[in-house]
């Protein structure tokens, strides 16, 4: 594999009229001494799906996990730079991380439902945050499961364990659980990589529907998936955002050689 220049980049500028949900400024991530992300500045437009693509180890997942500060929990990790969300730098120590995560939800690579009933999986966090009214919780379970396209399959037995579902259903349960918090932004870290093609298609349809209400940022290995569902695509290479543009352009007329080689399957 040839080495590509890390300075030869193209990042699409956004117009003033476009509403930005969250933006990073010179975001760097260090694992111990090693700099894994080299100062990435990306804005993400509201109510759009943005895909982060790149080879394994390109830093796309690390970058995504910084956005709701999940890297805080990994010893030896340091994140510098700014993450601007609603005029607030959420990468600052003064920010209440737990409160912030209610607004920026996350779905992980491997489905990780709690060892609780489907109903409790969804209502657990809202109840912790003080919602005790049964009718409201019931309603929440139904709407989130419907949004995640899981309601019809599980409505007859909401008391069964979340772990008794199939992999694809578990992942949609995790999506339902995340959107039950009514977040602004939904981060998805390769949500379909552990799923079969049919479950993947269902998850993709779910995401396309969710875009009306949520800003979605999704890391994916699967370029077809990025092409199918995303509005914007950022190509990561070696801890740097090399190219960021409308998905259509990235996949048809990429401006940078590295992007072109990656999307046409020359490496990765």
């Amino acid at each position, binding site marked *: 594999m040839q080495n590509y220049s890390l300075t030869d980049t193209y990042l699409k500028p956004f117009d003033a009229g476009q509403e930005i949900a969250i933006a990073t400024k010179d975001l760097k991530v260090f694992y111990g001494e090693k700099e894994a992300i080299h100062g990435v500045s990306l804005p993400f437009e509201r109510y759009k799906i943005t895909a982060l693509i790149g080879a394994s180890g390109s830093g796309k997942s690390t970058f995504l996990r910084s956005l709701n500060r999940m890297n805080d929990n990994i010893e030896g990790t340091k994140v510098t730079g700014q993450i601007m969300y609603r005029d607030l730098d959420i990468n600052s120590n003064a920010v209440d991380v737990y409160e*912030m995560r209610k607004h920026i939800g996350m779905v*992980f690579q491997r489905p990780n439902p709690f060892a609780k009933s489907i109903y409790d999986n969804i209502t657990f966090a809202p109840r*912790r945050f003080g919602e005790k009214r049964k009718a409201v919780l019931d309603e929440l379970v139904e709407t989130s499961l419907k949004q995640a396209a899981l309601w019809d399959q599980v409505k007859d037995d909401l008391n069964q364990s979340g772990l008794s579902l199939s992999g694809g259903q578990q992942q949609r349960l995790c999506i339902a659980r995340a959107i039950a918090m009514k977040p602004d932004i939904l981060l998805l870290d390769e949500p379909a990589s552990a799923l079969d093609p049919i479950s993947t298609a269902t998850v993709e349809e779910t995401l396309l529907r969710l875009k009306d209400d949520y800003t979605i940022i999704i890391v994916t290995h699967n370029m077809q998936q990025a092409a199918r569902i995303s509005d914007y695509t950022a190509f990561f290479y070696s801890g740097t955002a090399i190219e960021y543009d409308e998905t259509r352009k990235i996949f048809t007329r990429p401006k940078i050689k590295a992007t072109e080689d990656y999307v046409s399957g020359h490496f990765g």
Partner: protein
Amino acid sequence: MDAKQKDKLATGILYAIAGIIVLLLASLLGYILIQGLPHVSWHFLTSPAKAFEAGGGIGIQLFNSVYLLVLSMLISVPIALGAGIYLAEYAKANWITDVVRTAIEILSSLPSVVVGLFGFLVFVLQFNFGFSILSGALALTMFNLPLLTRNVEDSLRQVSFAQREAGLALGLSRWETVIHVVIPESLPGIITGMILGAGRVFGEAAALIYTAGQSAPALNFSDWNPFDIASPLNPIRPAETLAVHIWKINSEGIQPDAAAVSAGASAVLILAVLLFNILARFLGNRLYRKMTAES
């Protein structure tokens, strides 16, 4: 010999080894029960022991064992939970944590006689608790804590990191995630560890000889004020347990029916541990199902 035959041979050997273990346990259990059960009666279970004549029971010793077990678990379980949670969830990977872990490992291999003598010096003499249930319970805590802590830590670590991330990503604090997500999932492992610990406590004699004492003063079972000296609940009274009683009868018993009492007490001890295990497992499963919706 081809691979298939080798496999058969190896399987056969493993079966044989497992069989020997089962046989050993079954014959031991069978022997104790066959020897002991004929002597077990309601009278035997409820009446006090007699020092010089036949016909004594084990009522007080049995009660002492149960009370001591409850008391020592009340002390050690919360500490073990706290220490285990700290080690599994919060402790940073540095030398202090390593020292704590090593200390726990060394403590867990300490002979119970040593723990007993330590308890004698510290609780009985230094703290002036005398030969008492309290001294015994504290000594048993020393004896039990390392294994319980280790067990809690291991059980928590069994729960995948993804579960913790799921909780954190929903805006829950680390503590809430541990209490409401991680602990319910690791409950079966934690309960199994508690049962094993309880069994050890129930059957322990050496550590109690020097701490809870070897005498069982008469108790007034209608007096439940823990501050009265004859009350069964008084934690500052000397309390010979069932296991200590068995040891004592066999080493210096002068009752004409010493052998029979010893056999009966042993059978009761084993049955009590068994009963306790079954009960704890049943309750643990119910609790786990309730918390996890697993059927």
